[in-house]
């Protein structure tokens, strides 16, 4: 019998289907990623008028994106690498990049789900109204922003091999991002830190999502934040891919 190499599309579809099933069966982690931003948004019900609907929505989306990239993606990659799942897949006649792109594809689906969950919660719980263009624009920038955290997750699994160390590091980085990011943006940590946070991966992603929810307020600074976001995503991805090893051995 002649052995035939599958087309890249067939291989990718097969992998993606399997990765989506795997993600769906990890319902606890899916629910956690969806529910945390929604709970935060719900708890801000009384201060929405003060901070603004777009600011609240973008903060919650940014928190969700951070969780997906840092905790969801990097932990699943670290775990499967430790178990030898990647090595087994790499012995099959598919390009290795398909394996990673499929994983990233699943996370992009998660990014869209989290963004939609935040939009729906904002609409129903907090009566936040955004124009349809704003929603679509924000969904696109959420995907762009999500790549920053996926890139950062890739850096962590590139530099750290042990899955437990990856898990504890990502938790630490996640909480550092959220706490410093949120408190810094509110100005609680001082003006200097507020400026630093504004141009950090947390701040730039937050800025582009906030402004895409209100496209009329998009400014030169927002464009600079978008460029910075793309820059972070590219730099993190290059470092993460360069340092990544398929096996822990």
């Amino acid at each position, binding site marked *: *019998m*002649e*052995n035939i190499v599958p087309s890249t599309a067939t291989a990718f579809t*097969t*992998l993606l289907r*399997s990765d989506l099933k795997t993600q769906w*069966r990890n319902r606890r982690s899916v629910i956690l990623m969806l529910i945390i931003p929604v709970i935060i948004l719900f708890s801000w019900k009384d201060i929405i008028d003060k901070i603004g609907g777009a600011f609240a929505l973008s903060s919650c989306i940014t928190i969700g994106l951070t969780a997906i990239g840092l905790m969801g993606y990097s932990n699943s990659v670290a775990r499967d690498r430790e*178990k030898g799942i990647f*090595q*087994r897949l790499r012995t099959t006649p598919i390009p290795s990049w398909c394996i990673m792109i499929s994983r990233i594809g699943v996370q992009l689906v998660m990014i869209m789900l989290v963004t939609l969950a935040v939009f729906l919660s904002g609409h129903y719980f907090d009566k936040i109204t955004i124009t349809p263009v704003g929603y679509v624009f924000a969904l696109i920038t959420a995907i762009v922003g999500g790549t920053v955290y996926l890139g950062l997750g890739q850096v962590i699994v590139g530099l750290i091999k042990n899955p437990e160390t990856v898990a504890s590091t990502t938790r630490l980085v996640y909480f550092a991002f959220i706490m410093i990011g949120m408190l810094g943006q509110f100005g609680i940590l001082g003006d200097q830190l507020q400026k630093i946070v504004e141009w950090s991966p947390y701040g730039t992603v937050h800025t582009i999502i906030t402004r895409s929810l209100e496209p009329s307020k998009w400014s030169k600074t927002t464009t600079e934040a978008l460029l910075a976001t793309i820059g972070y995503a590219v730099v993190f991805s290059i470092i993460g891919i360069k340092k990544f090893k398929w096996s822990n051995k």
Partner: protein
Amino acid sequence: MPLQQDGSILNVTNVDIYYGTFQAVNNVSFDVKAGEIFGLLGPNGAGKTSTLSAVEGLIKPQSGNIVVAGYDIKEKSLYAKASMGVQLQANSFQSELNVAEIIQLFAGLYNVKLSDEKLKNILTDIKLEDSESKKFGQLSGGQQQRVSLALATIHHPKLLLLDEPTTGLDPQSRRQLWERMESMREQGHGILLTTHSMEEAEAVCDRIAIIDHGKIIAVNTPQSLIDLHRTDPKVIAASRKGRITLEDVFIGLTGREVRS
């Protein structure tokens, strides 16, 4: 793609593998013919798994050539991989997927059209017809090994690579696996197997290579290796039962020192 002119399905020629400055595999050459079970034996850290990983395309040798079913693993990697089936030491698959889903996944990756009937046949063949919805982690060691072998052969590869396939199996499961390997040999598959079990090597291998410190130090049929080395003083010194066994030859050639 035709076999090599000499009927071999795998040609490994002058392969060197380094990890940093450490040379794990040193100028290794051998071939596996269609319808042959070829055993690669060696102590821990001798270079067996590194050699196998290079054949599987998981690591790139610094020099040398590996040709699988006529395809160079460096230049036609995907074609070479499509011609081989692999069972790694760690049989890990996504723990969230069940047996049927894992089989469907690998069928897709090897471009095998899998009807429900064909899936049932595979499950029946590996005696897991009632376990299709069980997660891989819920299976016993023997059942996991059977699933893993079914995945490695789902596309009827010309070459089958088995890395210590019987480790941790009970005698019944081990015998069953040997029978499967022999049946595949009869169907014309070439099999490259690494093992620590001399009993296994003697029982199923047509030829074996002993590898130590990254170098192949002997290649022959199990019986010829015994006959050739039965007068070697180191082999005689290693003998425990008054008659020379393959294990005595192995200990005589690789030494008594325990490897890490």
